[in-house]
Structure formats: structure tokens, C-alpha cells
């Protein structure tokens, strides 16, 4: 869907008056490689043979050639497991990520108990990073309304007419200059995520670790009401991003302005901000890519524990939408490929305190991690551990097994595997280095079918 994805230029169809039209929010979405999309329900996959699909207006199931299907997006459905929480997230050397609860780890393998595929025994040689409590405790998960939020007075300093944010279907919308804020009691290490979509030029400011629920006029801050220092993350003219520490009395310096050219071709993006007071750090990801990892030489500026969104459109007609807003405690790990391995030849344990312990992880069991360091064997309570960076495997890997699919899970994580079957009997797959598994179909958010190039 090149065009639909790029632009949403086509008018959105309103429902038929006589009979409710199917809503695509409740339907799976099949995307063909030629850009076509078809909503409906996945019935069956026979790899190499067919993908069987039911469209609500088709009189019988449609059998697509598997090679013509690019991916399937799945509507939310109840889990057969009943619970989908997890205490840690494991990144593999191939970039896959598995969420689950740690069962044990020894010199050979790490065992993870997952709600979507049962117990997975993962060889040590393919481990990259294990992060504890990556998504927990969740401090705020999803917008449910305006209650608890403070609409600010955005009349001063607004370029265009001012108004208020509105709420609809899990999202905040603003088509005028508007401010909305909330004290979320942000912890010292926090992880903030949200989706933003826009029409016209994006002009959004996000105040981080603020103590003011009212917008601050940056060009006149010294003469305005008192406020505690905060970080201002600003998206201007769609493609420019700046982060600036704002202090009441300090003169403003010209902040570094990043140009994210790719945003010009989009009308939505996923924003992911990870902050650590101890490390004076603010890391920004957009659509999963690390854009900038700022270390503030002046120390962490944020004095409050709240967040504020201010839309300040440059011209009328611009609209911004915020959704999937989620705040959690951050474990200190930048879980992307750019994460610097402290020492790839040794396991490194990152402690909640910010300290690091270098030494081979001998085992994890009974709430303790056993390390063999240069100074000898030592045990550390798991509760004090934020993450483990495993040493890179130096030996000869076995031949890569065939894969044909890449799944993204609804509660986080993704895996590349060979899909063996999808049907009424369940979802069967073979994960390289792990083995055959039976997946819970409710786990899948998206299933991409790999081409020959991707497989290689």
C-alpha cells in the first residue's frame, strides 16, 4: 500500500447507511506484494501452497499464492493463554527479540517461559542481551480520555488560533494551538512511547520531566510564571527535531537541530524516548531507529515528573494525533542494533545502580545470577540487575536453517522462523537454534513473509 501508507490522500469512506460496513479495525489485513490490501480473516496457511483468506463479501474463501503475499496484520484477539505479561526480554544475535519470564540460564542455554510459544530453550551462542522488566512496571498505558489531564492555556504565543486537545478512540487530537499535560510521576529512568500522526506541517513540542501543567512561552520564560527546569523535545516543520533543556533563569542556547528527512514522506511515526537522570541521558528513537542519544553535560535538567504536549501549528489546517501513549520504567538498555557492547568478548551485567560487572554468567537461578569475574565467583540478586550483555559467540555456528516468516508479537518482541502450518489446529513453526514450537495465534500482530533475498 505505497500510496495509502504514504499519504492517506484518498477520502475515507463512510459506512453504508442500510447495513453497517465492516470496520477494518476488527479485521485482519492481508497485503500483497503488488500493494493491494484485503481486509478479512486469515483461515489457513499451507506454506508453499496457499494462504486461505475470508473476505466478508466473498462468497467463499480466497486462496492466494503464498509468494504473492507480503504480510498479514492481525486484529487483536483474546489469548488462549489468558495472560500476556512478561518479566524480561531477550534479544538474539540475529536481531529477534523474545519476551517472557526467565526460567533458568546455564552455560549452554537460557530458558524462557513465553505465553505465546511455551518454554523456549535458547542456546547461549545466539544470545545478545537479556533485559529485565523491560516493559514493567507500566506507569501509563493508553489514552482513555481527557480525565486526569490538564488542558493548558495556549493562547499566548500561538501562531494560529488556539483551542484544546480532544479525545476520541484512544487518541488525542489537536487542530489548533493547544496544550495538555499530566503529572505522571516519572521515575528517574523512564521510557515514553507514543504514536503521532499529522496532516500539514507537524509542529509539536513535548515537555519532559516538567512540573508545569501549563505551557511555557520559551521566548518570554523569564517574565512568565515560575517553573522547574524541563526538557523540550520539539518537532518543527515536520522534519526538524530539537532537544533543549529549559531553565527559568538560564539564557537559551541554540540547540542542535536534527533533520529527519524521512519524516517528509510520512504522515505518522512512532516516537520512543528513554531517559535516565543518573546518566543525564535522553535517547530518542523514531520508528525504531535511534535518532540521537543525548548526554547533557550540564546534568539532567528535568526537575518535575510530568509531561506536556503542545501543538503549535505554523498554519491553520494542520492536525496532529497522539495515540498508543505508554510510559514505563526504563531498564537502561537501548535495545537496538546500535547498542554498544561494552566488551563483546565477555558477558557484562548492567546493574540497576548504573554499575557494570564484567564476567561470565555461569547461571541464573533462584533469584540469583552467578558470575565468574576476574576476582572470582560472585552472586548478585536478580532484583539488582537491569540487563545482561552476553559475549559474542566466537565459534563456528551450525548451518542456518530455512526461514520463511518474520512475526511481530502484539505485546512486544519478534522472531524469524520457518512457518510450518497455520490453521484450525494451531500455528506451528520452527525457530532456528530453538526448535519446533506451537504458537498462540493471538500473539501475532504482524506476520511478514520473507522473500528469497530477505531469507539470505
Amino acid at each position, binding site marked *: *500500500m*505505497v*500510496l*495509502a501508507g*504514504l*499519504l*492517506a*490522500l484518498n*477520502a*475515507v*469512506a*463512510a*459506512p*453504508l*447507511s*442500510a*447495513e453497517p*460496513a*465492516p470496520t*477494518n479495525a476488527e479485521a485482519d489485513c492481508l497485503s500483497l506484494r*503488488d500493494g*493491494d*490490501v*484485503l*481486509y*478479512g480473516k486469515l483461515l489457513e496457511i499451507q506454506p508453499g501452497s496457499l494462504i486461505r483468506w475470508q*473476505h*466478508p*463479501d*466473498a*462468497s*467463499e474463501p*480466497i*486462496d*492466494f*499464492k503464498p509468494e*504473492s503475499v507480503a504480510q498479514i496484520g492481525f486484529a487483536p484477539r483474546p489469548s488462549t493463554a489468558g495472560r500476556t505479561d512478561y518479566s524480561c526480554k531477550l534479544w538474539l544475535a540475529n536481531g529477534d527479540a523474545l519476551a517472557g519470564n526467565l526460567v533458568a540460564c546455564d552455560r549452554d542455554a537460557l530458558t524462557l517461559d513465553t505465553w505465546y510459544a511455551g518454554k523456549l530453550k535458547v542456546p547461549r551462542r545466539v544470545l545478545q542481551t537479556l533485559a529485565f522488566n523491560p516493559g514493567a512496571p507500566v506507569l501509563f498505558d493508553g489514552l482513555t480520555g481527557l480525565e486526569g489531564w490538564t488542558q493548558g492555556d495556549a493562547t499566548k504565543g500561538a501562531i494560529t488560533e488556539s483551542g484544546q486537545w480532544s479525545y*476520541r*478512540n484512544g*487518541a488525542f*487530537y489537536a*487542530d489548533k494551538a493547544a496544550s495538555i499535560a499530566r503529572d505522571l510521576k516519572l521515575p528517574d529512568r523512564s521510557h515514553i512511547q507514543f504514536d503521532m*500522526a*499529522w*496532516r*500539514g*506541517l507537524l509542529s509539536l513540542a513535548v515537555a519532559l520531566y516538567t512540573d508545569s501543567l501549563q505551557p511555557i512561552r520559551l521566548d518570554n520564560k523569564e517574565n512568565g510564571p515560575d517553573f522547574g527546569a524541563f526538557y523540550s523535545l520539539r518537532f518543527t516543520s*515536520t*522534519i526538524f527535531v530539537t532537544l533543549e533543556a529549559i531553565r527559568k533563569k538560564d539564557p537559551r542556547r541554540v540547540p542542535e537541530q536534527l533533520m529527519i*528527512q524521512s519524516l*517528509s*514522506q510520512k*504522515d*505518522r511515526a512512532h516516537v520512543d524516548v528513554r531517559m535516565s537522570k543518573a546518566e543525564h541521558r535522553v535517547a530518542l528513537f523514531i520508528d525504531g531507529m535511534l535518532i540521537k542519544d543525548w548526554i547533557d553535560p550540564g546534568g539532567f535538567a528535568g526537575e518535575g515528573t510530568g509531561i506536556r504536549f503542545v501543538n503549535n501549528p505554523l*498554519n*491553520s*489546517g494542520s*492536525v*496532529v*494525533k497522539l495515540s498508543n501513549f505508554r510510559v514505563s520504567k526504563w531498564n537502561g538498555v537501548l535495545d537496538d542494533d546500535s547498542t554498544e557492547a561494552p566488551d563483546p568478548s565477555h558477558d557484562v551485567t548492567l546493574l540497576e545502580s548504573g554499575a557494570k560487572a564484567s564476567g561470565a554468567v555461569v547461571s541464573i537461578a533462584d533469584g540469583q545470577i552467578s558470575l565468574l569475574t576476574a576476582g572470582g565467583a560472585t552472586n548478585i540478586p536478580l532484583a539488582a540487575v537491569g540487563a545482561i550483555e552476553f559475549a559474542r559467540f566466537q565459534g563456528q555456528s551450525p548451518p542456518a536453517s530455512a526461514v520463511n516468516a518474520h512475526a511481530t508479537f502484539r505485546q512486544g518482541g519478534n522472531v524469524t522462523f520457518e512457518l510450518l502450518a497455520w490453521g484450525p489446529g494451531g500455528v506451528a513453526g520452527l525457530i532456528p537454534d530453538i526448535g519446533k514450537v506451537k504458537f498462540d495465534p493471538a500473539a501475532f500482530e504482524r506476520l511478514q513473509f520473507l522473500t528469497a533475498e530477505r531469507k539470505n
Partner: protein
Amino acid sequence: MKGNTAWACLLLCWLPLGAVGQILQQQFQFQQFQPGQTFLQFGNQAAKAERMPEPTSDVLEFVDGSALHGQLARMDLEHGLTWAQPEARNPIHFRPDHVDFIRFAHAQSVSMSPTCHLWFADGDDLYGSITSLDSERLGLRTWFGGSMVIPRAAVRAITLLSPNYSVEYEGPYDAGGWVVVNNSPKSWTFHDGAFIGTGPGTLGRELNLTNSCTVEFDVAWTGVFALEAGIYCDATGRLEINGGSCVVNLTPRQISLNQIQNTGMFLNMANAPVPGSEGQSRMHVAIECDKAQGTVSVFINHLLAKTWKDFGFGSGTGVMFKQQLSSSTLKLSHLKISQWEGRCEPETAALATNIDAIYFINHDRAAGKIESIQDGKARLALGEKVLEIPLERVTQMEFAAAKASTEPPSPWQVRAHFPGGGSLSFQLEKWDDKAVAGQSAIFGSLAFQPRSIREMEFNLNRPKAEGVAADNKEFEELDE
């Protein structure tokens, strides 16, 4: 008549023919223009002109956003819609209940000689020629049914076409005849009835424009955009537009006009704001170049933005569109380029009124009761007086709203859109590779050749998303 492909269509039955009046003999042509592949170069000397690739398949869209390319095999009440999708192992049978439209890749233009454009109360519009009018019935000739008589109550307005009015281009249904100067990465591409510009680049077409002309199109965009629409450009293969070219610069908020001098210099004429620009992400643009008057008028969403006077037109004969920014995406669709002499087809809102009215070529308007059209004259009753007005002096007639028979709601109630303009709604009965058959409340039984239809719209009672004014519409585009 140039470059026409022969067509045949058949009216299976029609209403009794009424009094036949004088048929106006002005010539009107719908054309499938097949120009030479000449490059319209517009300030990009190093780039190479290319033909755009041809699309080959129809597209089926549902109201839920599903979209499939392929080919319509057949439709009928019993079996529904049979769609051949190359990636599916078997033909797919769909019910029509949630189909939005089918767009056909290989619609063929029709040829005719109408003198007027009829606007119907149900939203349809057709090109044809009036033969008669009385208090109950309108006699006309249509391209699909020859002479026929229809209820007067079904007609909302009639626009009299100017002499030598011709539609030179209407589309795009494919990229045939267009050349593109793409920067890298590729800027202009064709996709599903629209040209998509994702970066700087020029799109052009030779059209042999010699008379006055109107260039109409829809433009939609993300972010901001800057589009140059050049008219009367030379297709000489040289690297600059020539003297006398008319270049309209469009942004979301402003319109300006450049007249290209023989020296190659741009003469920038006064700017004008885009009317009602707030909140827009799409607009309909009509650029009207009147060679006789030396004027260029730009209409945005059917509102006059500005008329520039004393424009010295040159001898170029092509059009071009230049996307200037790399940071936005443009979609150009519903292009219609027409030539005319004397006056153009006036903009028609065709709103319901409670009184008849006649618009004159001198822009006067007279309201009353249009009693008849006969012998090339319209009789307009103004109280006790009756005016007899030669049709040559009339640009448009509007009719008081009256109760007209309507199509019953049904999933098979469709509206066919024809190449070259015009649309007709009817109850579809059958579609196969030889004929399309249906029943119209106005025209009775109908039959067309399948290739005479470029788009078939379904579920006509479904509210259409018009503009972006409504609160929810403001935001729907942001919703996935």
C-alpha cells in the same frame, strides 16, 4: 474528429420520442489523444525524458479500504461480482454490498457531437444535444441512446457548450501519451488513476492546444507543496518553456501567475490567496485561458480565485506539471483539458432552486418559467411577458426542483462514469465481456459496451467524504 476509436453502444428501449426540435450542429469531440512522445522540458536540462509505464489491470475497492487489482470477469444479480486476481488461484466472487468502486484500466473514449451538458437531480450528468422541451418532457440525443425523451423533472440544469468545444484529454486512466522528467529518486509515477509526485520532476503532454482552453485537475498533498502548471508550453525538445507559456504556481495557500517572455524571463503577475485554504489537503483546480480576451482565470473548488488580464499567449500547444519540492507528496487526478472558442463551459453548482433561470452570454440572468425550447429558442415566461431567447445567447438554464422518480436503494444501484465526462446511475442487471445492461428510472433499459465505462461506483447512498470540513473528517485521515 481526431484519433477516435470506434465505439458502438445500444439502447435496448427508450421512452416515446417527443417533438424533435432543431438539433444544434456544433461539433463536440471526445478524444483518445495519441500525440507524439515529445518532451516538455522545464528547467531540468540534464534529465532524460521517459515514457511512463503502462498499467494493465482494473482496480476494485471496498468501503473498508480493501483494494485489489485484477480484472472484472462478470457481474450479475445471481452470482455477484466475479473478479480475476492474478495472485489468487481461482476467480473471486464478491457480493456488491460493500464495494466502493471499480476503475477500469482500458476504458475507451466515445465520440459524439453534443451541444450541451445536462445536470440531473440525482447527481448524474451527461453530454448530449437538446431537441425539445415542454412543461413535462425534455427531448435530447445522447451518445449511448440516440434520440429520447425524459421527464423534465429529472433535469436540474443544462449548460450550453461553446462553439468548437472539445475535450482534448480526460484521465488519467493510464500513463499513455505522458512523458516525464524524473529526478532521482523517481518523482512522478502513475498509480490507480492518478499521477503521484514524490519529488522534483516534470510531467508533460503534447495536446495541440490552439484555442482557448481550460485545464482542470484535483490535487491532494501532504505537508506543503509547490506545483507549477504550465499551459501552452512548446514541445520542442528544448530545455526551456517558450515565450507565451502560461505558468500557474500553486501552493496550499497562494496562487501566482507567470507569463514567460520571449527572452525566457518570467514576468510575475500579482498573487492571489487560495480561497478557503484553511484545513485543506486537496482541492479542485480549474485554469481557464481565454485567448480572445487575454485573460487567465483560476478557480479553486469552483470559486474564482483571480482573473489576470492582458496576458499575451504564445503558440505553445502542450501542458506540463512540475513538482518543485522534495519534502512533499502530490497526487494529481481527474484531469480534464478542454478547448473552446468564445466562452468556456461555465462552472455549475447545480443547486436546487425553486424557480427556472437562464444565464446569458453577457452574464445577465433572468428568472421565471422556462416554457419550452423549440426551433433553437428558449421561451421564458416572466410574469405576463414571454421572452424568446436564441440559444446562441444562452450559457446555462436552471430548472426549479421538482419531484423526480428515483432509483430504489439497492447494492446493485451503480453509477457509471464515462471517458470524456458524464455519469449515469442505474440498476445494474448484468455485466459481461460483451455488454453492460441495466435499468434507469430516467432512461429505461440501458446497454453499453463495457469499455465505454471508466469507473463504476457502487453504494451510491453512502455519504461521501467531502472535503475536510466536518470535525470527524478532520481527523479520519490520521486514523489507520
